[in-house]
């Protein structure tokens, strides 16, 4: 009986530490993916500024320069635009985001901003495109830097809480 109890405590501690580790990894993934999205917007800005590329063409070109959820997102965008089934651009954009949402670790605010971008791209002239993209690039870059600054401390907190939580549960059960 004691062995079973010990095994249970060990498993509990492992589980709670694992949970703390997972939350930590989630934070790191969020920061990394925001960085990838920022990079995508920078590339898109370049394509529009230098070549006045239309959006469908830009997404097709950028597919080869991206990986992970960005690549999947661009694939969905290209497929949606090529279908030309009468959907508005923002509808195709939101559909593409929803198709990759399981893969991304963004906060609700970041997800909302990403969706809003779809209603602002393609509107008015070249200068407008550059300014809109610049605004979002600046926001996401600042967010990435903020997350980087917080990362070490946040991960430590998650790990400590994970361990402490597991210990507390173990004590209560014992």
């Amino acid at each position, binding site marked *: 009986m004691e062995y079973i109890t010990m095994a249970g405590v060990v498993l509990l501690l492992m589980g709670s530490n694992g949970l703390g580790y997972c939350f930590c990894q989630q934070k790191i993934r969020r920061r990394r993916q925001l960085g990838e999205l920022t990079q995508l917007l920078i590339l898109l800005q370049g394509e*529009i500024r230098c070549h*006045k*590329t*239309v*959006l469908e*063409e830009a997404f097709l070109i950028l597919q080869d320069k991206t990986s992970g959820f960005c690549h999947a997102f661009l694939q969905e965008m290209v497929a949606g635009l090529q279908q*030309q089934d*009468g959907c508005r651009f923002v509808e195709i954009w939101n559909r593409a985001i929803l198709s990759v949402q399981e893969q991304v670790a963004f906060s609700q605010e970041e997800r909302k901003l990403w969706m809003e971008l779809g209603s602002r791209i393609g509107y*008015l002239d070249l200068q407008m495109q550059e300014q809109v993209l610049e605004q979002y690039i600046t926001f996401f870059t600042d967010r990435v830097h903020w997350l980087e600054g917080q990362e070490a401390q946040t991960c430590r907190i998650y790990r400590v809480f994970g361990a402490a939580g597991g210990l507390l549960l173990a004590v209560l059960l014992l």
Partner: protein
Amino acid sequence: MAKEARKAGKKKEQLMKIFSGRLRKILMQLPVDFAEVQEIRMRIHAPLLIVYQNREYAVLEQGGLGAVDTGAIQITREEIRETLELISNHSLYAYEEEIRQGFITIQGGHRVGIAGKTVVDERFMIKGMKYISFLNIRVSHEVKGCADKLMPYLWGKNQVKQTLLISPPCCGKTTMLRDVVRQLSNGSPDGAERREGLTVGVVDERSEIGACYMGEPQNDLGIRTDILDCCPKAQGMMMLIRTMSPQVVAVDEIGSREELDAMYYVMNCGAKLIATVHGTSMEDIRTKPILTQMVAQRLFERYVILDQIPTIGSIRQIFDEGEHLLYSQV
């Protein structure tokens, strides 16, 4: 033949994709030969009109063509908006310059004329357009062989003649130019009149001649043709001469002083020029301030007048540099 038919079918599908859902469905089912469709006109709160075999018809709600007052489809604001978004690939910003000039050229080389409320800057120059409510889709057709009758007149002493194609709008001068370029580029290796292919440079300012899409010409301009896409004609002609060593330079719709200077440059460099211009006759050309000097100096060796009778692209008359009639349709 089957390959050409497939290509024509693909072109039709590409064109239909720019229309909103409802219009696309009805247009796809129209019992018309797409090769004979010349224009499709969309006007807000007005019937959808189509120019087919030189006649205007209204497109009916239940499908088919008919008179304007017999149940024609009425175009809504939403349909114009949706069509414009599809035409511009949701990227109107990429067509700023074209919108200033009043048109957008789409994949396939079709020219979409647009009209709405212009936005002007402090110097009253057109900056852009808003409330675009009128679209005129001029359907482009590649007609291989339409220049067959013309080609023998463009050669003399084993050299191509400096040629000016003259025609009013919608008489097929761009289609004719396209086929002339193709035949010059490919040459004619067989037959009594064996001709070597020539290196041709095309300045395709409006993307109508080659209809390049992502760098690939959608029309066949021949195996020895280089295309400067979406390039201003005057600069394009100079660039081609300096970098691509063309034996022939082809341009569409010349009309400005800068273009005239560039044409002189091309001719002085030893290349031959094939150009088109709006006009109805030699008398009309002589009154154009830009061209009157060139005509007087006999720089062009062939003048080809096109007409739409009996069909679009018919050669009405051909003159030499001394304005002597070489061919007349009548």
